[in-house]
């Protein structure tokens, strides 16, 4: 009989001696108040520094062997060849020519190590920094945390989600205890704008304004004496709709010259990467891009053939994205992250067409821009890629690094129900200095 799982996280649920005192201190703001106060403070802070994140998520768990850490010729290497990158001595998979060309502009971590080998749990861990629990407080997606810490200026959405894994269990982690206000604005993918936002047309705006005027008029009687933060937030959400209607061209890819769009490739990912670049250029701080639904990178079988196509479209789209950001002077303030939830086994398995299973012990990812030191390779695995040889990087380390690059201290504590919740699990982790 095993003991119950070791603490997922000591939530320090009650470490604060008296929550009541704290609440009383906040006075009339009480329950509804904290988030608002923080958001207002943060909005002031955010005006000064403008940094962006584009997270391209490779759901399913990309193989490190077929991306950033090839072991060509070794028993674990698989049939793919590799290619020399622009960093001497560093080779990538043969189907990543653009990322190989950009290797001296980006960084790679070859020594990621984590613990949850289930898609759902891994997905959660790799995007919240916390292990999933059944506890009341659901951890927010780290980009929701960013939206909370560094909200957009000028009424733009702080965080936009382009595409998602299909199916409920693999849904992109939401805003958790931060609440719906920090939910990424969802766009269904393939370069489309927000769900339920009507396509461009002057009629919609006129119609909305006509209705909204009546809404405001008929709401007056109720609002008197009930001007609470909750009611304000409800009204503000409709203000945001009007803002989106006015700024629909934010999401309108038909405004992009075909020449620019072509470089991203004729794929759903290409469209979304182009949209991500457009959003960042227009001032949206945080964007998550999903690379295909259905756990595309989850190559248990028939891996090596289909992998070529997947890797190629990925390389084309993100290569164009990085080139584009560089050409437009956005690279220095935009953190681009290319990662999945874990890696894949050194063993090549499967009956019939072979593939690789889930592997959390040693995997790879790439990041660049926003001050990431270019051309760096952090850590290494052994000859066959069965273990990390040096410099393991944990999930808390990774998140500490992301936050550090954005000027956020990862030891910052958020409030949930009067208890402090650190940004990384138990406030652990240290930024990976090699890339800073």
């Amino acid at each position: 009989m095993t003991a119950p799982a070791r603490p997922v996280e000591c939530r320090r649920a009650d470490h604060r001696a008296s929550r009541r005192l704290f609440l009383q201190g906040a006075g009339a703001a009480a329950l509804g108040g904290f988030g608002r106060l923080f958001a207002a403070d943060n909005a002031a802070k955010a005006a000064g520094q403008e940094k962006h994140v584009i997270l391209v998520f490779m759901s399913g768990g990309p193989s490190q062997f077929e991306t950033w850490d090839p072991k060509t010729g070794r028993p674990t290497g698989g049939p793919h060849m590799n290619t020399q990158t622009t960093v001497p001595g560093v080779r990538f998979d043969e189907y990543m020519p653009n990322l190989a060309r950009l290797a001296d502009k980006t960084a790679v971590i070859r020594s990621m190590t984590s613990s949850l080998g289930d898609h759902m749990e891994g997905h959660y861990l790799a995007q919240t920094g916390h292990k999933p629990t059944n506890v009341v407080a659901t951890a927010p997606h780290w980009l929701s945390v960013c939206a909370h810490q560094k909200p957009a200026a000028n009424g733009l959405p702080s965080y936009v989600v382009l595409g998602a894994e299909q199916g409920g269990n693999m849904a992109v982690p939401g805003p958790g205890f931060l609440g719906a206000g920090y939910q990424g604005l969802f766009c269904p993918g393939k370069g489309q704008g927000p769900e339920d936002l009507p396509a461009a047309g002057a009629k919609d705006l006129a119609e909305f304004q006509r209705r909204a005027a009546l809404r405001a008029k008929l709401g007056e009687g109720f609002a008197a004496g009930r001007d609470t933060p909750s009611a304000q937030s409800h009204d503000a959400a409709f203000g945001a709709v009007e803002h989106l209607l006015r700024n629909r061209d934010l999401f309108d890819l038909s405004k992009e010259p075909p020449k620019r769009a072509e470089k991203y490739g004729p794929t759903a990912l290409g469209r979304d990467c182009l949209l991500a670049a457009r959003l960042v250029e227009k001032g949206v701080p945080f964007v998550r891009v999903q690379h295909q639904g259905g756990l595309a990178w989850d190559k248990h079988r028939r891996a090596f053939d289909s992998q070529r196509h997947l890797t190629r479209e990925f390389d084309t789209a993100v290569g164009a994205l990085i080139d584009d950001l560089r050409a437009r002077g956005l690279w220095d303030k935009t953190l681009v992250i290319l990662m999945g939830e874990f890696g894949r086994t050194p063993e090549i398995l499967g009956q019939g067409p072979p593939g690789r299973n889930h592997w959390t012990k040693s995997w790879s990812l790439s990041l660049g821009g926003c001050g990431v030191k270019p051309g760096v390779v952090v850590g290494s695995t052994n000859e066959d890629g069965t273990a990390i040889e040096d410099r393991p990087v944990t999930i808390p380390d990774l998140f500490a690094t992301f936050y550090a690059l954005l000027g956020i201290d990862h030891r910052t504590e958020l409030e949930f129900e009067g208890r402090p919740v650190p940004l990384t699990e138990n406030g652990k982790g240290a930024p990976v200095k090699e890339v800073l």
Partner: protein
Amino acid sequence: MRAAILTAALLLAGTAPVHAADARELSKAIDARLAAAHKATGAKPAPRAEPHELLRRIYLDVLGRIPTPEEATAFLNDPSADKHHKLIDSLLAHPELPVYWRGVFNQWLNGTLEEKRPGEAEFLDYLEQRLRDNAGWDAVARELLDPNAADPVSAQAAYFLTSRLAGGDRAAQLDSITVAVSSSLFGVQMQCAKCHDHPTVGDWKQENYYGLAAFFAGTYTEKGKTNLPALAERAPGEVKFTGRNTGERTARLLFLDGKVIDAKAGRRRALVGAGVTADGPYFKRAMANRMWRQFTGVGLVEPVDQIHDGNPATHPELLNDLATDFAQHGFDLRRLMGGILHSEAYLRSSRYTGPGPRPADSTYTVAALKPLSPPQLALALAQATGHTETLRAKYEREKAKLKLETVTFGAVRKQFEKEREHAALLARFKQEGEAFRASAAHALYLTYNPAVRAMLSPNGLVGKLAKQPEEGEVARVLYLTALSRPPSTEEAAAVAKHLAAPGVAREELCRDAVWALISGSEFRFNH
């Protein structure tokens, strides 16, 4: 099957009908406690809410929906001064109460499950049946922890535990059960004590967490008599844990109060014996506080599952009164509900007219604005737009296929819960955070989502209003259907003015008017 249900109902103790007068004793006690608190702080409580406000509030809180136009008219036309008290009593006996509250209880018990597991539909049936029986909360808790597999209704309660035994490794399963049981039945979270002795609650040592886990050390699932997973109790191994300085230890069967329990009759049964009692503080307080929060919007202790000395109640005597009364009356849920609902504290206005800033909700001086829960919002939207009438006609046509005898409103709402649009709305409006916070996605949904657009089609209220030749009648029907009240003169004039806008089709203008109400704060909140 029917006979079995009946037998089960008869076997349950404490199913006497609620006597309305009894619950009022509790209401008086509540008001006395709060009056004393307000006197001490010099707070001036808000007056009683307007009748139409009480009408909507009571329907939403007791049945989880807004009143139909007919129900609203009957209430508003009733001249008696105590009509809201009569309404509370009649809704507490309403056949839709169990249909609504099964969802509330399921959310309390299983809201943190990350995915639905086999047996959820049957678990809802179970809750509905027990609510219909007016089973005591102690009897329900006993079945949640130790269901009677031989009784087909009771066996469905196993879902509370089997749903947590369905995924993850054994250690994670035990953790999930320990957390669910301590949080939802006993109102405490002990995650801190998992890794070290509790820092601020002197009584809770690491041993307490593992002591509670040990009650489930022998609990596994097996294939049940039906297709549903059932619970099995095997000879348990021991739960071991490692303290910071103490090395590995074996957990004793330890209840939260520190008593070491003897478990000859089975570990889970022993937990029932130790915890589900009228004497111990945990079980009765947890439900008293949750129910209070459900109706007033703010728990006497927040969060509701952190009731301990380090986090005292805002009004400790009041919590004690509620818990004691609940336990002394057979854990009668309807009595507890009635006691709170009949109190002046519950009936207060949510409007604050000063002086100074609005007092905190936790002072219970002014009624809180409670955002409609996602299921309340889904149903209220369907009602306010006339969509429930469309659904009723549809289900009437499909009566045979749906195996419905008569298409009552209760049947409509149950069937509506199975529609895809219902699930979509719940997913979009899921509220996890502490404070209510609307997002642009919510507003976009309420404005442009195809499901909402369909509700605003000419088949529903919009069409009915567009065909109404008399201007005054448009505003009257609109307000009665969507907001359960007549419009003020000013509001009726504003609607009439809008309908007179040139160059826009009347149907469009009527759609604007329905949308303006369902998107407003008066609709979004229970106030």
